[in-house]
C-alpha cells in the first residue's frame, strides 16, 4: 500500500459488492425486485436478473441492489420487475428482457428517469 488513493480504490471497488448487506431503507438504496416464481422463470426472468446484476457491477452502482420475489399475481405480464425507490415510490416494469433490463438500470437507476414505455401503465 503506497498511498491513500490506492486504499480508496479498493474501497470503491468493493463498495457495490457489499452493498447488498446494507438493508434497503437504511442507506437510501433502491431495491429492484424481479418476480421469480415458476411463471416468471418460465417467461425468462433469470436472464433479466443476471443482466441487471451485470450492469450494476459494470457501472459500479452502489445505491441499488437486485433481489427476487415470488409470484406477483399477474403472470401474463411476466417477467415483472419492480423498482422501490429510496423515497418510497414504486415502479412496475412488465414483459422484461435482458436488453430492457439494461435500459432500466441506465435510465431509471442511474439517471433517475422512469422508462415509461416498459411500465405497467403503458400496456393497452
Amino acid at each position, binding site marked *: 500500500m503506497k498511498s491513500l488513493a490506492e486504499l480508496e480504490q479498493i474501497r470503491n471497488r*468493493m463498495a457495490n459488492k457489499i452493498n447488498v448487506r446494507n*438493508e434497503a431503507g437504511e442507506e437510501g438504496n433502491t431495491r429492484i425486485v424481479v418476480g421469480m416464481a415458476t411463471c416468471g422463470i418460465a417467461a425468462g426472468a433469470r436472464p433479466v436478473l443476471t443482466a441487471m446484476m451485470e450492469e450494476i457491477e459494470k457501472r459500479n452502482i452502489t445505491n441499488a441492489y437486485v433481489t427476487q420475489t415470488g409470484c406477483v399475481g399477474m403472470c401474463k405480464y411476466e417477467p415483472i420487475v419492480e423498482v422501490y425507490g429510496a423515497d418510497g415510490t414504486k415502479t412496475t416494469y412488465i414483459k422484461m428482457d435482458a436488453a430492457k433490463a439494461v435500459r432500466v438500470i441506465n435510465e431509471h437507476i442511474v439517471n433517475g428517469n422512469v422508462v415509461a414505455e416498459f411500465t405497467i401503465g403503458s400496456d393497452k
Partner: protein
Amino acid sequence: MELARAHVLVCGGTGCTSSGSEKIINALEASLKEKNLENEIKVVRTGCFGLCALGPIMIVYPEGVFYSMVTPEDIPEIVEEHFLKGRVVKRLVYKETLTEDEGVKSLNEVDFYKNQMRIALRNCGVINPEDIEEYIAYDGYKALGKVLTEMKPQEVIDEIKKSGLRGRGGAGFSTGMKWQFTADAPGEQKFVACNADEGDPGAFMDRSVLEGDPHSLIEAMAIAAYAVGADRGFVYIRAEYPIAVKRLNIAIEQAREYGLLGKNIFGTDFSFDMELRLGAGAFVCGEETALMTSIEGHRGEPRPRPPFPAVKGLWQKPTLLNNVETYANITAIINNGADWFNTIGTEKSKGTKVFAVGGKINNTGLVEVPMGTTLREVVYDIGGGIPNGKQFKAAQTGGPSGGCIPAHLIDTPIDYDNLTAIGSMMGSGGLIVMDEDTCMVDIAKFFLEFTVDESCGKCTPCRVGTKRLLEILNKITEGKGTLEDIDKLEELCYAIKDSAFCGLGQTAPNPILSTLKYFRDEYIAHVVDKKCPAGVCKALVSYKIDPEKCKGCSLCARNCPVGAISGKIKEPYVIDTDKCIKCGVCESACKFKAISK
C-alpha cells in the same frame, strides 16, 4: 469477489462452529451448486453475531432474514424456497424477528440488538474476516492512513487521551496515559504488544474480535506503534483459540501482501511488522509481566512492578501492552473522533463494553452496551431474562478476580468505578448470571478451585493461601464448618490481598469476599443449620419421600442407581439416607412430586 444478488452470512465463530456451522456451509455450497445459484448467491463465513444460544446462525441479505438453529437438513429447503423462489422459510426464522403479520423485521429492531451499541464488535458478523478487501470496504485501514499521513505521533496520543478510553483488560487504566508513558520512555527500540490471553472462565469477547475482525487489531497495533515509536509488535494469544490463531495469521499475511504491514507503509517512513506468540494456557500469563516473560521464551511468572512495561518491558525495552478489546476501539476513535467517543458512556468510563453473558440466562452470547447500562437492562432487555421463570439472584463479573452483584443492586449502572465500589470489578467482561438454584458458597469454591490450579507458585500467599481458602470452603460445603471458620476465611482473604505478588493472588479472594459481603447468611446456614439453602452442596442435602403424596408406584426405586429406595407397591416408599448418593434422579422421576430435598 463477483457481484452477488444475495449474501448468506454464516457465523464461523467458535460458538457456532461447535454447534455445526461448518456443516451448514458445506451443505449450502453443495445445494447452491445443484440449483446453479453458486454465482448469484455468495456464502460468507463471518465472525460472531453475539447470539450464541441460537447457533448456528445464518443471515440472508438483502432481506436481512435471520435464520437460527439451522441444521444441514434444513438447507435444501432454504435454498429451494428462499434463494430460488424468494419465499422466506418462516419456520426457521428467529421468532423475535417475525412481526405479527408474519413479516420479517430488521435485526436492529430485535430486543437483543436494539439496546446494543457495537463499536468493538462493529465488523463481527458483518464481514468475512479472511478477506482484507471486505475489511477495507468497511473503512478498514482508513484510520491508519489518516494517522500516518495527517497526524503527528503526539497528536494521536492526545486524541486517545481525549477520548477517555480505559483499558478493557480489567484494571481500567487510561489507555492514552499508557501510550504517553511508552512514548516518553527513553530508548531507541520499542515494542507494542497485545494481550490476547483471555483466560477468565466464561469470557470470550477477545476471541470473538480476533475471529470476526482480526484486521481491526492489526490496524490498531500499527497506529499504536506509530504513536509510541515502535516498529515491532507481538500478539500473545492462547493456543486454545485455534480459529482465532488461524484467522489472525491469514490477516497478517494479507496485510503484508497489501503493504499494510512491512516497510514504508502508505509511502511514509513508518515501518511496522508483527507476529504471534502462542501461550500454553497458563492463566497467570494474562498478568502483564508474566505475559512478557513468556513472550521472551521463559517460564510465565510475574516480576515486580515498577519498572512498568512502559519503561522496561519486552527484553528490557519500553513496551506498550493493551488488551484486544482496547485495540478494537482505536480505529473507531480515530475515524469518528475523540469527541464522538467521549459522548458515549458515563463520566469516568467512556465508550462501550462487551460482555460475554452466560449462566442462567436465555440469550447466552456476546453483548456490547454503552458504559452505564444497568445490569437489569443487560439481563432482562437484552439477555431475555432467566429461563424457567426462576428468580435472579446475582451476577458474577470479572471472573476469578471479580465478585457478585446481588439482586438488590441490579439497577447499578455498570462502569469501572461503580463495580469497584460494590466490591466487584469490570474485569475482562465475563458476566455469569445466577438464579435461586445457585449456592453462593459453591460459586466461591468454583473460582477458588480455578485459582488454586492456576497459581504459578512463585509467592507463598497465593500458592499456599488460596489452597487454605479452598480447604476451608470445602469444609463448609461438607457441613463440617464452624462460625470460627468463616472468620478465619475472611481474615485470610485480607492477608492474601495485601501480600500476594501479582494481580492473580491479590484478587483471588474477591469471589469469597463479595459473597461473604452479600450472602453471609448462606455461609451461616451451611455452618450453623448445616443446610445448603439452594440445595447444591450434596453433603448438606437429604432427599425424603412424603408418605402422604407417595402412591407407591415404585418408579423412584426402579430409577435409583444405588438401590437406596425400597418399599411395597401401593404403599409409601422410603429412602435409605446412608446409601443415597444425592443424585436427584428420584426427584425428577417422581410423577407426584412426593420427593423433595
